[in-house]
């Protein structure tokens, strides 16, 4: 197997365990789309054109609640704002690639693909085909998301709600933070983010609680690094 394929395969393997909750989430999304009566083509169209679970569900929720297009699009922007930060983190590794690669890799940059490929980029700076890792992880997310959307459209709610699989979403993101549990500063940053989001969940409009919590936590991170500088 050549090196590029090996790196793609590594990306697929690394992101696979994180796909456990994506399947029921995609099925739920497909069911919601059909329940709202937008039809199979539009339900799948959203998954292909937007390709972002949270954005798609927020769009459907607000649409069914009769919100204006301006409110819907502002909310989609707020939900997606975290990707700007992911892009800033990955730019260090991706900025020298060709434009076509930047476009392809941006399209498949989900939370899960970002998390595993960013770790790979940091640890494998000798692999000159490193960016194929994001191709593998990103298109794994893409494929699983489209298949589970179709399953939701065709089969309806086949996953029993009692299993509580929505909790697995929280668990997979928690598992992505295991390397941060050992660092005191990161624990403070994580607690800030979580507490601000929990308080802001009901009070911050346009579902912007995630980016508000993220910026608050990054401000805390800046303050913590300033304290570090003073010590030196």
């Amino acid at each position, binding site marked *: 197997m050549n090196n590029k394929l090996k790196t793609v395969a590594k990306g697929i393997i690394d992101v696979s365990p994180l796909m456990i909750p994506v399947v029921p989430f995609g099925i739920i999304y497909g069911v919601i789309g059909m329940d709202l009566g937008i039809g199979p083509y539009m339900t799948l169209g959203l998954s292909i*054109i*937007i390709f972002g679970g949270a954005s798609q569900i927020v769009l459907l929720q607000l649409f069914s609640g009769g919100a204006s297009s301006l409110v*819907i699009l502002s909310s989609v922007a707020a939900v997606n704002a975290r990707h700007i930060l992911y892009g800033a983190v*990955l730019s260090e590794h991706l900025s020298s690639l060709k434009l076509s690669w930047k476009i392809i890799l941006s399209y498949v940059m989900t939370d899960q693909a970002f998390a595993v490929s960013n770790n790979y980029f940091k640890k494998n700076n000798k692999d000159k085909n490193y960016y194929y890792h994001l191709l593998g992880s990103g298109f794994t997310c893409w494929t699983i998301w489209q298949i589970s959307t179709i399953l939701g459209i065709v089969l309806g709610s086949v996953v029993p709600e009692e299993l509580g699989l929505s909790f697995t979403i929280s668990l997979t993101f*928690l598992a992505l933070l295991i390397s941060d549990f050992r660092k005191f500063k990161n624990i403070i940053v994580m607690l800030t*983010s979580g507490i601000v989001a929990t308080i802001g969940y009901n009070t911050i409009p346009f579902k912007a609680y995630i980016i508000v919590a993220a910026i608050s936590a990054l401000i805390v991170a800046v303050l913590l690094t300033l304290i570090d500088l003073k010590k030196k």
Partner: protein
Amino acid sequence: MHWSLIFYAGVITFVTRFSMIFLLKKDILNDRAKKILSFVPAAIFPAIIFPPIFLDSAGSLDLESNPQIYAAIFAIIVGYFSRSIIATIFAGLILYWMLIFLFNF
């Protein structure tokens, strides 16, 4: 729903993902900016994790007899010692299922 709304939502989503990769040039960020950006996962993921665990479906704080809190704490402990993503997810899920199915939490 009109296809144009879906298209605009798709463009917005793509632009958020693409903008920084397109705009930032290599080595434009100094070490301090890189250090702060290294906190991005720690600054974002808890905002996704906390609300569904601590808030009930009505959106109010649920700290009593909430099996997700115990399962999440167990997953953190397993993750801390094992450093394995798969072990962390399954540890949390298995304790969660034990609590709700065997102990009727």
